């Protein structure tokens, strides 16, 4: 029942956003930060059947688990790329988690937060660094 996973060269990456080593991404939008999972993450998991997200008002530190995503094959925790308070949650993906598989960087976004310390983003990965990390995983 194994599905062919994409090779690193076949994955897509969004420009001008930050990547967290646990395969979430952070995008600055005005004074807020939007968070989602990468194409690599959705590809590894397979078709998503369930997602558990926090609610507006919940607060997290960078590296905290803020939710969980599930496919028939596996379960994965979601890690905060930045510290902050949840401002909004993408209800569309709660109803239809497959949106994340099809469009992980745009309509598949997960939460939007008010960050406590934007400087934290400097400590996480650029697109190039993230791609390098994935190449290392491959070896």
């Amino acid at each position, binding site marked *: *029942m194994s599905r062919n996973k994409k090779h690193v060269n076949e994955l897509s990456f969004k420009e001008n956003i930050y990547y967290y080593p646990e395969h979430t991404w952070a995008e600055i939008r005005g004074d807020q930060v939007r968070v989602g999972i990468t194409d690599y993450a959705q590809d590894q998991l397979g*078709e998503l059947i369930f997602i558990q997200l926090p609610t507006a008002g919940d607060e997290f530190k960078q590296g905290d688990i803020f939710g969980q995503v*599930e496919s*028939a*094959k596996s379960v994965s925790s979601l890690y905060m790329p930045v510290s902050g308070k949840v401002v909004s949650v993408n209800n569309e993906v709660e109803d239809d*988690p*497959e949106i994340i598989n099809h469009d992980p960087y745009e309509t598949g976004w997960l939460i939007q937060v008010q960050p406590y310390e934007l400087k934290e983003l400097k400590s996480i990965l650029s697109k190039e660094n993230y791609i390098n990390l994935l190449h290392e995983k491959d070896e």
Partner: protein
Amino acid sequence: MSITIFTATGCARCRIVKEFMKNENIPFTEKDIKGEGKEEFQNFYKVNRKAIIRGSEGIEFPILVENGEIRQGIGAVMAFLLAGRKLDGFFTVGSLHQEWVDGIHVSGGDPRYKEDFIQVLRLLKSKNLNLQMDTNGKNSVVLKQVLTENLAQMVIMDIWPKRLYAQLLGEDMNINYIEESIALIPQFSEYKFQTTILPIQRENGEISFLTPEEIMETAKYIYEVTGSKKNKYFIKPANSQDIESDIFKSLEPLTNNQLLVYRTKARVYQVYAEIGKQS
């Protein structure tokens, strides 16, 4: 009363269940979660997530749903199709795959329904599956029939010091059945005895693990009933699933050196005693 079976493409056990239902003319609706059943499974999963078991390879299929009853895994699904709730407890989702089926508990269900239980085993065996079963010694009559009909490719018996049975299995337990089971076990082609080193409540109210002396007592018990010191016998450390979490947290786990002491004591009466892996 309509039956829905959730399947995953390529799942061999799902195919066995479907063929069985077609042969028996049991109407059902198949929902392949990788095909047109995707959305329905998602909706089902959202509501019933906590009841669904995952193994090392993900969610275990087939999953049967009928009127709010959910059964998962080939054993539990076949048992429910043949006998409804009568066989509850005999089958749970196992951890083995391909041609091996486990999660079969000889002492887990009501022995009054022995014939239905045996029928499910016969069916599974007829599909060229290898069956691995476990027992704590109750339902020895059922175990005897499993042996007579050669339905188990592997049997595992959980065993304790004789004087602790009432405490561990309940006052209504009959030690004669336990000893009948012990005597049957070595007659299977593949078998093992095992003791999980559980914490138990002592007379003074304290809770402590079974001691090496108690393991030696258990090994001696096996010897006395089977007449042999050469049985396969495994001593396993308890894991968090074996013990209530409050109790588990308050106990220091046994070290490898401590486990070796258990093994040395066990080997006085069962010379092949080994430390088993934590499950």
